[in-house]
């Protein structure tokens, strides 16, 4: 057993949420992989050919899916974990990390994905939830998890359950960045409020955010989530990606935005470059040139409450 020294993200294990050291032992490796993915683009892919295009463009990881969120939205019905065969084909085709999605609360899908040795599991609202109250107990797994969040409380509840990475949810499959912006701004402004609160106000803030006090205290001390904070849901252009990075995202997920556009390879490469040069408007202008048609997209305002994916998760 190795002692858990101070970690670079300043996150000692939250008391009360970690039950034993065997679980704690893998924590640094889990968050460590999330650290390795910073400053990059994670792309949704539905087959080995897409995965190769993504890797060639410079993606830091791919998300193996049967359908991109735009198609899940169009097709309706129950969206589930992908066929293991498809995941294995994608794993065999690239050397970068391969992620896959399980339904919210569906810990057996997660067990299967862990058995397949995917590198990260996304417990995702894009799939149809399997449990309307509980998320997966992510501490029980060796594989790290990423979860979506719309606000600070939701993000910290997922961290308490063992998520090693948070991504703002946005509204997947729309190509409309407005919700991603809303969620990133919400989380970061709520962090600033917690950071600036008096210590004796943190108890009430924990109650208001419905989050563990230890994690609220961590945010107060560090001004950051306990784990890396990425962005997802509606990013379709290099400018969208750079917008999320400037707002404070540490990496971006691009789902339907690439393979629903007219020239995926070109757009994928441009989005990777836009994350590298996210503060350099001259370079962004150059990068954004001649990329063909972006995905058509759906205006988020036109969606009814029932059609929103981001409201899934509790």
């Amino acid at each position, binding site marked *: 057993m*190795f002692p858990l020294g101070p*970690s670079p993200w300043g996150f000692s294990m939250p008391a009360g949420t970690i039950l034993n050291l065997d679980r704690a032992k893998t924590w640094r490796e889990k968050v460590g992989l999330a650290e*390795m993915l910073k400053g990059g683009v994670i792309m949704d892919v539905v087959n080995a050919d897409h995965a190769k295009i993504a890797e060639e463009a*410079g993606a830091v990881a791919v998300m193996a899916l049967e359908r991109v969120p735009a198609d899940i939205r169009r097709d309706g019905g129950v969206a589930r974990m992908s066929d293991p065969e498809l995941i294995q084909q994608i794993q065999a085709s690239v*050397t*970068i*990390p391969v992620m896959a999605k399980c339904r919210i609360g569906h810990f057996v899908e997660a067990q299967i994905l862990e058995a397949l040795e995917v590198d990260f599991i996304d417990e995702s609202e894009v799939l149809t939830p399997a449990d309307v109250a509980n998320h997966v107990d992510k501490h029980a797994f060796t*594989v790290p998890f990423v979860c979506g969040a719309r606000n600070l409380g939701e993000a910290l509840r997922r961290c308490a359950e063992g998520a090693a990475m948070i991504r703002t949810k946005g509204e997947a499959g729309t190509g409309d960045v407005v919700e991603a912006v809303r969620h990133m701004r919400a989380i970061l402004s709520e962090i600033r409020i917690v950071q600036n609160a008096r210590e004796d106000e943190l108890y009430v803030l924990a109650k208001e955010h419905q989050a563990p006090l230890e994690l609220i205290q961590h945010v107060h001390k560090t001004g950051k989530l306990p784990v890396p904070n990425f962005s997802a849901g509606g990013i379709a252009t290099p400018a969208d990606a750079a917008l999320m990075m400037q707002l404070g995202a540490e990496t971006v997920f691009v789902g339907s935005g690439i393979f629903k556009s007219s020239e995926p390879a070109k757009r994928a490469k441009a989005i990777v470059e836009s994350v590298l040069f996210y503060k350099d408007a001259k370079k962004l202008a150059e990068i954004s040139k001649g990329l063909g048609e972006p995905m058509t997209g759906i205006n988020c305002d036109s969606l009814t409450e029932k059609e929103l994916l981001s409201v899934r998760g509790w």
Partner: protein
Amino acid sequence: MGTRVGVLAIQGDFACHLKALYSIGASALEVRTAEELDQCSHLIIPGGESTTVGKLLQRFGLGEEIQSRARARMPIWGTCMGMIMMAARVEDSEQYSLGLLDITVKRNAFGRQVHSFEAPVQVEGVGEVTAVFIRAPVVTDVGSTQAIATFDGQVVAVRQDNLLGTSFHPELTGDTRLHEWFIKEIGSAQRG
């Protein structure tokens, strides 16, 4: 020039290295361009994804800039992806690397993420460190370099004059001895 450590910030855990460097009072900066590279006496290539960083180094010509600094004996240290990037040869791959260290590396030598782990490792000149291995590579041929750490019979750290490569991530542990050693010891090879 005084000591100023650049951390290649194309992609990866560069912020963790910066934090470690600041904690020992070192002057440090993020490096994305040749101009920023000019401001450094030392360079660290962090952990991350080697295919991504390799492609971007190639696309923007920064790779050649780093190669010319290495020839001028700038101390350069690569952790995990950084060591892959510094290697002359990558097993079963035609991916781009800088070819600074005369080694062959094997990527993901321990397997996928579920096989990531940490273990105590003796590093020559530094002592025992907690080595965090994340989808880590190993050195399968040390060439003309000096192996300075092994784990389970496999070489996980090498040194060659002003160059240092480690399979693991000291920047994730809060233990800054390797950072200090890199600045002082590897840095002195520059003048030697």
